[in-house]
């Protein structure tokens, strides 16, 4: 058996052609996906100089705007490369090509031979002057690393200048503005996005950007970035310079053609390819932004996918399909600023008619150009809902003579949302990946696709910019026999959005009070379900940098005590890890006597509860106790139950008491989606029941197990193992990472056990302790930021938020009338 296996492997290797791909970006990997559809005959190696698997570069704008995380935009996971037997070399740069020997040289010194070479090197940001980038504080916006660097730099109140008012520059500006920067866009031309918009459209766009708080300077040609070694401002040929704490250069892109030149290929602006996507060397191919086809270098994804399909056919020996160029369409991806442009909108050309519609008050501008009775170009600002119809006319070259009177006003049927039934089969649904309605219907019928996730997997539709998601859903609903709508529970009928949407809205729209959210996205009043949930989100996202609205909190969180059946309250001071002292116990006893506390009870959580306290006595009791709040009344950090561990127990192998106390100290005073109870035990005998806690740490000889998602209340669930680590510090840090992940991703009132059942431990692991270092650090940083601003709620006993917070109001007087 073994022998034959080896042999077949050996044979396979000898027979298989070696395909080397340079560039692990969108075009290269999409083309490889297409090649794999044709044939598995290649032994594939992909070199990429970024350190990430292939991700959706388009969505970097959303990452910068805080709407998505770096993990959300991954297109091909490591498993995908493995499953397809692709050798992936990340973080290395291909520096040379020898077209005669057919080898590539890599910057680590290695040499790799190829039978076929695919150049997919994309492009690089265009930097008008080299000494600009030598200054600290000058950034570009092209990769995940660039985005991370920008996010790191973008601090509220810092002055950012973006050079370039095209798609990329505007999306960068908006992202930075969401991060709190004071942003100015400077642009060389007389209008924004001049390649996609006419002067009127550019004017509307400028107004919208300014309305969102981004400043725009036009007709400014940047001569210099000021500052000695560090960016301090930007100087122009015309007029005074402006100040800047940092600068983003988004002045265009330059195809990466260096390897093409080294391979002696024909290179103009890009690497020249013919309609079959062949270069001037028979075994070297090129795809993506680095190529030039019929004199055009593209800078958007739609052409890359079309090119990839053709190239895949050519390279696998199925030469035949040709690439004819792409009708370019661009859409600005800024929430609330709808801009769409396609084709040639120049109405000065002979034989061209223009049709316009304008509503300045609503900020809507539409213009289409018609040549020979056919659509030549379209500009939509403020309302892009008809973009699909125009794209279809453009691609199909539809004769519009009969429709001349309704060009800008679709018939009422179509107006009521795009009618998928009326769409012709060839019409494109996903413009980024070029998936037609027909292809989607085929996938549904032939491959048994029933959900959006399956559709994405099968056709890749809606995995680009995502703007066709709604259309895909509609098609699924209409055609799939067992369509399962991804059940998205909305928070409540006052604010009918799913909670993850709401978190995104709060972040991106910078809403900082509950009432604001209710006014803008809800019914204006709210209720006992959504108000506390929104209050939690506010606190979690803005960590104190928001308006805390006590009227939106449950009574327990207004008076920091637990309301009882008779309207009295209970007081549970924090006793970290359940460890107290005679002095503390004496104070508790004195307080119980002094205020006639009806019941003193040891809780199930190793703490002491004083029950039956009047609201007006709360501040006095807190002061007399001199202990912090145990948060026993709120959705927050309850406690860490500990056992005595190595300190006293004869079985103990870890110091669970100190570890538990430290864990409690690190997390106390924070709010969570639901209560969080924790445990720390010194050996697997598990005396403090850590395996049925939300977070538990279990000591072992030489290590700790960190477990999460346990429960022993209404539901009983054994916790899942998150990770096993060597040191106490690592265990605490893993607990912190999970804790923050739960805070950011769970729905309000979702305990960790439900959260884990919903997501699965594998996903949670991958996104917490096994996530890339920057992701983990991000979670920790955000946790520590919140923690630094959180304080003991009982301090409000001395400085109440409102004069009557703890007071029983007595009538002032009785007057007859």
């Amino acid at each position, binding site marked *: 058996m073994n022998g034959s296996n080896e042999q077949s492997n050996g044979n396979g290797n000898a027979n298989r052609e070696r395909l080397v791909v340079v560039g692990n970006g969108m075009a290269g990997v999409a083309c490889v996906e297409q090649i794999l559809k044709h044939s598995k005959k290649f032994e594939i190696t992909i070199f990429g100089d970024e350190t990430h698997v292939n991700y959706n570069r388009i969505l970097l704008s959303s990452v910068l705007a805080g709407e998505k995380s770096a993990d959300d935009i991954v297109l091909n996971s490591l498993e995908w490369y493995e499953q397809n037997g692709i050798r992936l070399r990340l973080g290395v740069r291909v520096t040379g090509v020898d077209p005669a020997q057919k080898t590539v040289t890599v910057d680590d010194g290695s040499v790799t031979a190829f039978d076929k070479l695919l150049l997919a090197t994309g492009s690089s940001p265009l930097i008008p002057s080299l000494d600009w980038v030598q200054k600290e504080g000058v950034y570009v916006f092209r990769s995940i690393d660039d985005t991370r660097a920008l996010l790191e730099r973008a601090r509220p109140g810092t002055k950012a200048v973006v050079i370039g008012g095209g798609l990329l520059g505007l999306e960068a500006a908006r992202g930075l503005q969401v991060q709190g920067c004071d942003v100015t866009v400077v642009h060389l031309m007389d209008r924004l996005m001049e390649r996609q918009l006419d002067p009127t459209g550019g004017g509307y766009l400028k107004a919208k950007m300014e309305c969102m708080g981004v400043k725009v300077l036009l007709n400014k040609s940047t001569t210099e970035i000021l500052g000695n070694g560090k960016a301090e401002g930007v100087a122009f040929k015309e007029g005074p310079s402006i100040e800047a704490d940092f600068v983003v250069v988004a002045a265009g892109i330059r195809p990466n053609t260096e390897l093409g030149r080294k391979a002696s290929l024909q290179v103009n602006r890009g690497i020249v390819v013919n309609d079959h996507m062949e270069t001037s060397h028979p075994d070297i191919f090129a795809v993506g932004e680095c190529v030039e086809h019929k004199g055009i270098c593209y800078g958007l994804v739609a052409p890359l996918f079309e090119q990839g399909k053709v190239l895949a056919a050519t390279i696998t020996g199925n030469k035949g399909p040709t690439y004819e160029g792409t009708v370019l369409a661009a859409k600005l991806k800024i929430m609330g600023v709808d801009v769409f442009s396609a084709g040639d909108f120049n109405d000065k050309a002979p034989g061209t008619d223009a049709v316009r519609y304008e509503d300045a008050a609503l900020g809507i501008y539409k213009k289409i150009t018609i040549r020979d009775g056919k659509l030549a170009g379209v500009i939509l600002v403020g309302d892009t809902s008809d973009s699909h119809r125009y794209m279809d006319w453009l691609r199909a070259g539809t004769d519009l003579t009969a429709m001349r009177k309704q060009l800008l006003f679709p018939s009422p049927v179509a107006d009521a949302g795009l009618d998928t039934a009326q769409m012709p089969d060839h019409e494109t649904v996903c413009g980024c990946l070029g998936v037609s309605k027909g292809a989607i219907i085929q996938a549904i019928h032939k491959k048994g696709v029933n959900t959006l996730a399956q559709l994405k997997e099968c056709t890749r539709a809606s995995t680009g910019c995502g703007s066709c998601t709604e259309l895909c859903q509609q098609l699924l609903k209409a055609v799939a026999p067992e369509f399962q709508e991804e059940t998205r529970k909305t928070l409540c009928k006052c604010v009918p959005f799913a909670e993850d949407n709401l978190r995104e809205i709060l972040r991106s729209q910078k809403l900082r009070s509950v009432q604001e959210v209710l006014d803008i996205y809800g019914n204006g009043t*709210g209720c006992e379900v959504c108000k506390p949930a929104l209050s939690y989100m506010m606190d979690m996202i803005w960590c104190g940098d928001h308006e805390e609205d006590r*009227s939106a909190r449950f009574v327990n969180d207004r008076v920091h005590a637990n309301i009882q059946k008779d309207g009295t309250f209970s007081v549970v001071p924090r006793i970290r890890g359940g460890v107290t002292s005679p002095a503390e116990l004496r104070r508790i006893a004195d307080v119980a006597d002094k205020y006639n506390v009806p019941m003193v009870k040891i809780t199930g959580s190793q703490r002491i509860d004083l029950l039956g306290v009047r609201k007006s006595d709360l501040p006095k009791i807190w002061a007399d106790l001199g202990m912090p709040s145990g948060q026993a009344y709120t959705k927050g950090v309850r406690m860490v139950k500990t056992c005595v561990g190595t300190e006293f127990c004869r079985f103990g192998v870890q110091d669970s008491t100190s570890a538990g106390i430290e864990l409690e100290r690190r997390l106390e005073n924070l709010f969570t989606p639901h209560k969080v109870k924790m445990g720390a035990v010194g050996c697997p005998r598990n005396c403090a029941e850590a395996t049925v806690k939300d977070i538990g740490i279990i000591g072992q000889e030489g290590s700790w197990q960190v477990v999460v998602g346990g429960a022993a209340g209404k539901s009983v669930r054994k916790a899942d193992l998150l990770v096993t680590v060597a040191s106490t510090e690592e265990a605490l840090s893993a607990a912190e990472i999970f804790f923050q992940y739960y805070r950011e991703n769970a729905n309000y009132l979702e305990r960790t056990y439900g959260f884990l059942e919903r997501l699965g431990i594998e996903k949670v692991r991958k996104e917490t302790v096994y996530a890339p270092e920057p992701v983990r650090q991000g979670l920790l940083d955000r946790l520590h930021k919140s923690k630094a601003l959180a304080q003991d709620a009982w301090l409000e006993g001395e400085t109440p938020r409102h004069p009557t917070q703890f007071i029983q109001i007595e009538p002032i007087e009785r007057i007859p009338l």
Partner: protein
Amino acid sequence: MNDKPKWIRTARCEDIPLREGRSVRFGEREIAIFNLGDRFVAISNRCPHRDGPLSEGIVSGNTVVCPLHAWKVGLDTGDVERPADTLACVETFRVRVEAGFILVEMPLEGAEKKQAPGICIEHGGLPVVPKPPRMGIDDSDIRNIRA
């Protein structure tokens, strides 16, 4: 004196934060006064369900949600709006603002006698047996939400 309605000067306007309630004790009564932004309203502070302190509830438009088991009471009508079809209501009081004070009208002594928690004059004065709250959740579930 006793046969006339009395206006009681209860609290200062600023004593009651926006969209919150506070209770004011007056003799045997406890009155919950709410600040709805455009006006103040006053109702009895005792929930018809199990005497929960309505002044501690979350205000939702022109209703308040009892902090104990989430019954919902109309602030203008005093009617219980949730659970549906509950014929219970709480007493409501007229309110006016004068020189920065909230004045609440006390009904006649005689009328006072007729009103008791869980009995609703508008609904024929029949005593209403508090039904367990519905909404598909029972008592312990509600506690679970709060605990």
